[in-house]
């Protein structure tokens, strides 16, 4: 097994290549550090990475029933979310996978008569749990590990005391493995090494029938995650298919710092329509003379589309000319607010002033059930050293410098959301959310927030 040091994988592609050769815990740790260092950034790469790692968790971590799996997923998911809390898609993918598992489990249960639905098991654990210092899921995990041996279908409540005691007695030596790991011992060790104990359980004869069920669940969940991955990869195409409806001949379309999705959308429209594209470019962080979005511009020029790079911070000046504004979303929150590149809110506001349509392109996987209680919590502040150097003492010491990377576009400024499932108004987003996420998973990443 080749195990690369985390710093060795600077982007998504390289990271995905290392996945196969690595132990699961190494992969998780390296993904977490990649996220923290923003070496994997942007909603799509984050989503893809999350899907991959969760697939590994399902395939390679040891678990023996639905609850164990849900525990593994949500614990690792939580750590990923904490590594990059502003990238809402990570949590979205985790929720999707959790929902998937619950669905599969529910199906299985309905077929076999193996008892209570998973929610019923989870809920009491969450609510009854006496000590907030412990991640609520940890005892559940322990329970399920222990419970494999007697193979009891309803383990949670009756076995809690054992779970806790076994935690302290058995797990202590294990923490040594993770003395140097980034995370607290509870998380890592129970996720990654807690399960090996369970192996002894698997050898008991009574387990065998269950094991077949686990096996089928595993493969079904893996199939489901593969589907999510496919969905992510097809999003751009599916959104682009709706371009012709939105863009009309002769339009002046303003796009704000176009992402791959937006570029695809515009290029698709360019096949059939003649229009003018205004690109609101990213403010230059460094002095450079190269034209931004060169390849995109070339492709459009080849299609006979006029492209103008607009180099203004505020775009109000152009709005009387522009017909519609297209913004690529990093994420969409439940109330319809859109997390987008900094400056997008000003663009959307300007468009609103002139009554121009503001269209947001976003894959459904970016649609988050969360609702931020304040806008600031989702703004990512970035590096300002490119225009204020450290040699500039007066600025460094006397001035607070703020550079936003992302910001929230308020929902009232947005007219239409285009996802891979079609075109929606903001009122319709809630039903999309209901279709894609299970209510009980919405806050999964907050379960143990209290202890921090």
């Amino acid at each position, binding site marked *: 097994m080749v195990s690369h040091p985390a710093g060795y994988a600077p982007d998504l592609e390289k990271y995905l290549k290392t996945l196969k050769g690595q132990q699961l815990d190494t992969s998780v740790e390296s993904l977490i550090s990649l996220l923290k260092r923003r070496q994997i950034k942007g909603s799509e790469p984050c989503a893809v990475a999350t899907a991959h790692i969760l697939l590994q968790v399902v395939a390679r971590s040891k678990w023996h029933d639905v609850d164990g799996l849900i525990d593994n997923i949500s614990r690792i998911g939580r750590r990923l979310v904490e590594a990059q809390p502003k990238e809402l898609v990570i949590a979205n993918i985790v929720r999707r996978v959790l929902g998937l598992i619950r669905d599969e489990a529910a199906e299985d249960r309905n077929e076999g008569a193996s008892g209570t639905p998973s929610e019923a098991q989870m809920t009491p654990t969450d609510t009854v749990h006496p000590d907030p210092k412990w991640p609520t899921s940890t005892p559940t995990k322990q329970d399920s590990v222990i419970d494999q041996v007697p193979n009891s279908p309803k383990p949670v409540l009756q076995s809690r005391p054992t779970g806790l005691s076994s935690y302290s007695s058995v797990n202590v030596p294990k923490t040594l493995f993770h003395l140097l790991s980034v995370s607290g011992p509870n998380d890592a060790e129970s996720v990654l090494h807690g399960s090996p104990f369970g192996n002894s359980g698997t050898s008991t004869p009574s387990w065998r029938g269950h094991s077949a069920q686990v096996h089928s669940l595993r493969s079904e969940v893996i199939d489901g995650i593969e589907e999510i991955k496919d969905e992510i990869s097809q999003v751009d195409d599916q959104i682009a298919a709706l371009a012709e409806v939105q863009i009309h001949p002769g339009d002046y379309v303003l796009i704000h710092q176009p992402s791959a999705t937006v570029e695809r959308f515009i290029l698709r429209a360019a096949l059939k329509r003649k229009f003018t594209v205004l690109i609101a470019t990213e403010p230059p962080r460094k002095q450079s003379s190269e034209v931004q979005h060169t390849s995109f511009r070339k492709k459009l020029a080849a299609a006979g589309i006029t492209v103008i790079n607009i180099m203004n911070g505020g775009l*109000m*000046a152009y709005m009387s*000319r522009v017909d519609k504004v297209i913004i690529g979303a990093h994420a969409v929150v439940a109330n319809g607010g859109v997390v987008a590149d*900094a400056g997008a809110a000003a663009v959307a506001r300007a468009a609103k002033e002139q009554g121009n349509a503001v269209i947001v392109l976003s894959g459904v996987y970016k649609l988050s059930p969360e609702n931020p209680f304040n806008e600031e919590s989702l703004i990512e502040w970035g590096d300002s050293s490119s225009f204020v150097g450290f040699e500039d003492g007066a600025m460094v010491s006397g001035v607070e*410098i703020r550079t936003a990377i992302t910001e929230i576009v308020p929902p009232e400024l947005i007219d239409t959301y285009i996802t891979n499932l079609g075109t929606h108004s903001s009122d319709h987003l809630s039903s999309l959310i209901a279709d894609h996420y299970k209510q009980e998973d919405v806050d999964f990443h907050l379960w143990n927030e209290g202890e921090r």
Partner: protein
Amino acid sequence: MATETGGPAPAGPATENTEKKEQSKGQAKGQAKDQQPAAGTSTGEKKLSGAELKKKAKEEKAARRAQAKAVLTAHAPAPQQSSGGDGKGGKGKPKQDGAKLALRPASTPAVPKENKPSIPACFSHLSIAKRIDMTHADKDVNPAVLVLGEHMSAFAISDSITRLEATLLAFKKVIESYNTPLNTTFSRHFTSHVLNPQIEYLTACRPMCFSMGNAIRWLKLQISKVDIDVPDFDAKKLLSEAIDSFIHERITLADFVIVQTAAEMIVDDDVILTYAHHHLVERTLLQAHKEGKHFRVILVDDPYERVGIDLAKKLSTAGIKIAYSSDLGALRTHLNEATQVILAAEAIFSNGAMYARAGSCDIATAATDLGVRVIALCETINFTERVSIDSLTYNEIDPERCTNDGFRLLFDTTRDKDLSVVVTELGNSSATSVPAILRKLEEL
């Protein structure tokens, strides 16, 4: 700036004012290839060029006369360019026809061939500053004006009031160096034969701002009022004094009053949000700080022209707590913190719309959305009778970024509904009462 340039100005080039138009046309054709934007490079060169220019002109006059006609016809059907010029700057009617044509050919062969076709068609109606090599300027242009034109086209002198002041000072030099030829009178000869070429040149360098238009109209009126019996010396003295008092009243005092008034509007614990850099805002903040008020400043900069960094340094050196944001990102967050927004206007239209640095409108609308008061600072000389309801009626293109690869407008128009108060030297008013103020000013 104008003062330093004034020194070397010899009366020579300006006084000889015959057949200037034809000549300039011819020259341009010959030499316009290597246009060099030598903005600051300055006075010495200019003196030479003035003299040289005259010689050359004389030598080649004959040849040019013939060419000139051809040139004129060739370039005459390119009127879109001039349309931009007067869109922004065209206050005085006389200069538009004769004058512009005279200069236009000078600039057309070189500049437009590089830039013109690449200005996106949808913005081609807007005006743009261009560098005119001093050697291609009309020979009657006074050296002081020549230098000023260079500075303006290089945006070394860029905001409306500074440009106005520099222009008036330069015109003072022109007046001082003028001697009325025989058989004419000052008031009839000066404007059409001396002043207009200066104005044309300045307009060609960079479209005039509204305040320059207003002031030039005023100046022409003063000149026309000069009695024909008054001797030159007295007339010149009279006008010089008039210009001085105009500068004093409409600019120096006006700025002083505006700064005082605006500083009074800042109270303890205010959080002032401002955009990029304008000297009025800077002075206001420093004044309020001097008065001992405790407030914070959030400075949002123009990401493509970081003029705010210097202001941030100045303010923080002065001891004002300041936060600097490099662009309009997270603007709403900043505005949520702010209690007042202070912006300075380049001009205010008679419908109350504010013409200011591009981006001001974004800030004003967002501030109004969030219920934050927006204060616009503007001298009344910047008021114009024109009306603009969008930003593409009057605007100016950044000459450095005027192609499809990179395009930038310098200004935008903020509607009156997004301005809470306009601070002028006549007091605070609402944006909608701008026409009333304009009428009052006419009565004065």
